[in-house]
């Protein structure tokens, strides 16, 4: 897991001290983590993940299972269209499994708002 953290440091061009300062986690924590003396608990993992704008899952495994929020390609495409189109300009909170027809319902709702 520290190896993933090290890659994130390199990618962002920062040092553990910078992460410590931004997150409020002590510098000694990162030293202990690197030496294998300590494994971070969930609260620290979340702070570190938020700092790098990655998921905790990614920090633990190196794989971001949340990369694609929408699991249905048709729904994602319609969500993107409704976001970009100035006649709609909408963001949803929907299930990751939302179907295109569910978002079509919202599109028709907005069409009624606009008339």
């Amino acid at each position, binding site marked *: 897991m520290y190896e993933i953290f090290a890659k994130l440091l390199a990618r962002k061009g920062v040092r553990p001290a910078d992460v410590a300062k931004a997150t409020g986690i002590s510098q000694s924590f990162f030293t202990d983590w690197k030496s294998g003396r300590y494994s971070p608990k969930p609260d620290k993992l979340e702070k570190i993940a938020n700092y790098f704008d990655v998921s905790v899952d990614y920090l633990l495994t190196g794989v971001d299972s949340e990369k694609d*929020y929408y699991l249905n390609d048709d729904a994602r495409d319609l969500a*993107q269209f409704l976001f970009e189109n100035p006649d*709609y300009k909408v*963001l*949803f*909170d929907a299930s990751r*499994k*939302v179907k295109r027809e569910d978002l079509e*319902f*919202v599109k028709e709702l907005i069409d009624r708002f606009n008339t």
Partner: protein
Amino acid sequence: MDYFVRLIDMPPAVRSFIKENSDHISATIVINARLSREQQQEQYVHEVGHMERNDFEKDDVNQIETKAHRTQKNRPPCGNRADGVP
């Protein structure tokens, strides 16, 4: 920013949405009326969060929603809510 909130019956998979209004100084938040009072309040917080993060200035809805859910604390991943809401 002014928010106009409406409660409307929607498909269960759609919890809420936020739409920038044409005046550019207000937004309409539509929340699924089927949700409980507590869930409706959570949705309000979620949608206001989009404005606070300037999400309408970004590009990709996948990344916007992934980050919105990541930063919303105490919220389980979608599809895994204990109350059964998808």
